[in-house]
């Protein structure tokens, strides 16, 4: 009973945030709705017992990636969206299409997926156990993703620095 109430509350906040992201015209409002979605998803992870994943979701996703998004929106001074012909076509076709797809998926999952039940804290994800997995079985993906992040950092610095900063440095 408590599980259902908590799940519904945080699930409703998630869906409300996601719908708000679609409905808002200014990107800063969409970014803040996405932060709300991520925070309520962290609560959902806690309901399933994944405490470390929930903490990392808040620290990394809501606290770093979304800050980056908010930063870029502030920097580029993004204004409200305009309506063009492309967007009208997309509204007409996209919304009914995805609504249909979404309803079919939900019906199939609720009726036919015999997935069983989950209790509160179903699989406790202690940091110790996750660290054991991460550094023993998943060591290779771990190292590869660290190289991936290094490449991403270098790429982002090169792309965002722009072509003129190099020539300016040579002139000085």
């Amino acid at each position: 009973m408590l599980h259902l109430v908590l799940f519904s509350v945080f699930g409703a906040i998630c869906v409300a945030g996601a719908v708000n992201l679609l409905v808002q015209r200014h990107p800063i409002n969409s970014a803040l709705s996405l932060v709300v979605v991520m925070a309520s998803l962290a609560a959902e992870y806690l309901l399933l017992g994944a405490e470390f994943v929930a903490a990392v979701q808040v620290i990394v996703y809501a606290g770093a990636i979304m800050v980056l998004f908010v930063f870029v929106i502030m920097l580029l001074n993004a204004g409200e969206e305009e309506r063009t012909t492309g967007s009208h076509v997309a509204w007409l076709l996209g919304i009914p299409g995805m609504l249909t797809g979404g309803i079919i998926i939900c019906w199939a999952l609720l009726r036919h997926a015999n997935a069983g039940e989950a209790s509160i804290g179903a699989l406790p994800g202690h940091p110790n156990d996750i660290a054991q997995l991460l550094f023993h079985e998943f060591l290779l993906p771990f190292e590869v993703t660290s190289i991936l992040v290094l490449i991403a950092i270098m790429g982002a610095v090169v792309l965002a620095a722009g072509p003129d900063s190099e020539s300016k440095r040579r002139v000085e």
Partner: protein
Amino acid sequence: MSILTFIIVSVIKIVLVIFVLLTAVAYTVWLERKVVGRMQNRWGPTRVGPFGLLQPAADGVKFLFKEDLTPPHVYKPLYIAAPMLAVIFAITSIAVIPFGNWVTVGNISTPLQITDVNIGLLIVLGITSLGVYGVALSGWSSNSKYSLLGGLRASAQMVSYEIALGLSLVGVLILAGTFSLRGIVDAQAGHFWGFIPNWFIFRGGQIVAFFIYLTAAYAETNRIPFDLPEAETELVAGYHTEYSAMKFAMFFMAEYSNMITVACIASLLFLGGWRGPVFGPFWLQEILPLFWFMLRVFVFLFIYIWVRGTLPRFRYDQLMAFGWKFLLPVSIANLVITALVVALK
């Protein structure tokens, strides 16, 4: 303990802690004005009450009655929400901080902590990362050059120093083996060589991590020497230029609450928490750990204010270079050395 007793005890703890925290924030402002004043060879507040002790009350009344004007060109929803976000995130992290041992009143036994979560340190780090939003959004929503620049600079600075902050704490985590703040303090029990306490700063060798943490914390809380985003001579007042009265007071409260949280975490992780000589009658034995904890927090706040009165501020590019090119490699080196020492034992 039944559910009802648990809820009542928790509500009492929450009310008490929030009351103490808000009073501590007000009197930290008083302490800062006095100490900085004395360092600059002047008195500080002396008129309102003995030693100016009622000055925070006078300031509170002033902030409440000041005209709360909202400039017409701001983006209203975020303008009003940003200081609230800053204060909410600053005050929430006190929920996982333990102040002392378990106390027993009658037949109810409760820890001196609102809640003991086994990922307590991660929660504090998470709330610190979310605290960037209050600053960034206030700078942007004020719709003015100084605020936008101040907000951008402050958020970039806070995000950069968060990494060094987190990494400097991982050495302590390796030694303690748990994320729970109470567990970390319990891992610092006992003495070695007879009289030196087993704190992580001595026995664990985390003295370098302690200084990295302190420096990164000064940058996280936007205090001198890292307070360029809100410096008066540089950017008018940075991200809180367009704010007046209660909203400005909320930013102040958020900054000093962050200082207090940082001081609490430093004393828990590096200086052994509430450990100290315990003696005397029964009721004194319950109060003494709390007193030792408050003593450590007070020492930290004094060091914060001391540094503020002494050092000049960094230029922005010096600040960012220091964070990325010096603090981050040193904290990684500290982590590697600590891990090696623990693994080879």
